[in-house]
């Protein structure tokens, strides 16, 4: 009966997981095969099982493809950008030449803990086409003002820039930890072996950071696939759906229009995509 005692002790945790995780996820999965909406909420008799229609409709919905395209755009450009900025900041802070490291570390981390709404308000001013600091700076080098958030071409880059600024501090801390775990003697060995600064970075820092890169890459990618708050606050998915993300689309379906069946289907499609890309990333990393 020893196994029984074991189950007895893990039972509370299992129960909590079952109630707050397994059950909701399973319900959501079932929900994605129904047309649960405002009518069904009023009268459950109006609920229909629609099989995989939600998924079929989703794949036939141009807005979904737009949202998916935008999300991939955001992940493909914003992810690497944010990781590179994080790495750059971590290298700067880790440099022996830099003073006031703690101050810089705190300052760079501040955007991460600042509420997005406050950040959004600030960036809306920076992006203002007529009075914004960004366009003012660009005009200094002779570039015509850009309507950052109003122009469908520029809206996503603007969101990416803001998201990278908002989030790089988090990865920077992880990179810093990674950098600090590289033994000094490796750099010394490399220097004695004739490596200049670039070589040290290329042959010591980068390969030694590979596990950190994998972690940061996957975490960032998963987070970036769930792009929501930035466009929700800054552009509401506009202009012309240019910043509509999958999660924002899901939010609209689920909580604005109360089409929970559709929303659940979107959630599972997104889940499968994230899972697939994560596996791909792990695989690529392992092959190297």
């Amino acid at each position, binding site marked *: 009966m020893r196994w029984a005692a074991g189950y007895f002790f893990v039972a509370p945790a299992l129960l909590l997981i079952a109630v707050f995780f397994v059950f*909701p996820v399973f319900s959501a999965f079932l929900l994605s095969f129904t047309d649960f909406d*405002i009518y069904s909420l009023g009268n459950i008799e109006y609920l229909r099982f629609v099989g995989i229609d939600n998924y079929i409709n989703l794949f036939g919905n141009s807005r979904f493809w737009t949202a998916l395209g935008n999300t991939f755009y955001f992940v493909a450009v914003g992810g690497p950008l944010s990781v590179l900025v994080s790495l750059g900041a971590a290298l700067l802070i880790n440099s022996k030449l830099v003073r006031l490291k703690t101050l810089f570390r705190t300052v760079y981390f501040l955007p991460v803990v600042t509420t997005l709404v406050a950040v959004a308000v600030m960036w809306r001013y920076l992006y203002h086409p007529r009075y914004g600091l960004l366009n003012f700076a660009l005009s200094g080098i002779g570039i015509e003002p850009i309507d950052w958030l109003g*122009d469908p071409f520029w809206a996503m880059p603007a969101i990416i820039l803001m998201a990278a600024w908002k989030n790089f501090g988090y990865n920077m801390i992880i990179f810093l930890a990674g950098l600090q775990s590289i033994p000094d003697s490796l750099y010394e060995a490399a220097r004695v072996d004739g490596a200049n600064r670039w070589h040290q970075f290329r042959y010591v820092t980068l390969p030694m950071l590979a596990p950190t890169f994998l972690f940061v890459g996957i975490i960032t990618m998963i987070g970036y696939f769930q792009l929501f708050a930035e466009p929700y606050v800054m552009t509401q998915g506009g202009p012309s759906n240019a910043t509509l993300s999958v999660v924002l689309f899901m939010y609209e379906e689920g909580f604005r229009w109360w089409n929970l069946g559709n929303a659940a289907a979107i959630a599972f499609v997104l889940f499968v995509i994230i899972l697939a890309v994560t596996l791909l990333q792990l695989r690529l990393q392992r092959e190297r």
Partner: protein
Amino acid sequence: MIQPTIRSICFALLILLCGCDGEIKDKVTIDFWAFGREGEAVQELVRDFEAEHPHIRVRVQQIPWSAAHEKLLTAYAGDAMPDLFQLGNTWLPEFVALGAVAEFGPWVRDDPDIDDDTFFAGVAATNVIDGVVYGLPWYVDTRLVFYRSDMLEKAGFKTFPGTWSAWREVMERVKESVGPDKYAIFLPVEDWTIPTILAMQQGASLLADEDRYGAFDDPRFREAFDFYLGLFRDGLAPSSGGSQVANLYQEFSNGYFAMFVSGPWNIGELKHRLPGKEHLWATAPMPAPDGAAAKGGGVDGATPGVSLAGGASLAIHDGSEHKDEAWLLIRYLSGTEQQERFHHLTGNLPARKDSWIASGLDKEPRTRAFWRQLQQMAPTPPIPEWERIARTIGRYTEATVRNTMTVDEALASLDEDVDRMLEKRRWLLARDQ
């Protein structure tokens, strides 16, 4: 998917905790949800109501407008609805479909203070679904034109035009007089209200066959749409969208544009934000289509074209145990005197006509435009899907303004999308017949 569950649990806990604060026996407590500014202002009126009705206690909960719709739906899903609540009158069909709101029939019929002419007809109609009354208008809202009288004068116009063609001419002249960097009118590119108003003025029904299908390929809708798009295409309105205008009032004051279409709250806002410039701006009812007598508009400017019947209503939760007490409060808030007080507190326009006359709002030049406009209102289709359809109209409007779609493509896709949204409605109608 987890979040709503947790949220409703927390909410239920909150309700439980709140419910514990020593309710006195024989005293009825009703919960009242009101939104934004209204939620704050109404507390004063509620205090007087409580004084008049010592056996009733009213707990007012103030909810931000941006979260209100979701919060009501979540409360319904979590069985935590208040007894009495405010709601945007276009939301009513949704809550009727849910069975969340009580019928007002007998109360309204028996009330000596309320008859067919008490409220503006267009607004009163939004509270009636399939012949049944579910809410009482609290305040009204519609859209009309705010304009810079000095800029119009400079372009050679002393009064605001009453017809589309005259309106268009005014805009062209204004544009000529302000030059390339400024505009005649500001229109948000993703907006659905103005195209919809223009289409309703043309007599377009928006939906067809008992609201089973979209009717956006209707030539009347198309005519309105063309007129609207023409304003962007011909440079009368900036086509770059809302982000150019960080501060509407500032830009209006700077003369970046001479007109915009908006609602009554901007009377107060403009007074407040443009101090000392009150002589420079005015309001005017929506112009009507040319020769539109037959289409529900006025004859060549004598009567305004129709506009949206907006505003907020008060409704009672069907599951409430204190419906009678809640009705007492609604009646109180809809009384002539309270409507007037409410207007002074919030700037919202009273839903009761006699409150307008009593407070002279129908004579004051800026509100007079609203008085005239409020006589000419049309409700949007009273179906739960309307909000979503409206947003979709806005989206396709934007796509055409930005030239990513032609008008033909946009209207065809709009019909297609709307038909898909109405699939459930068609199924329900077929099922219940």
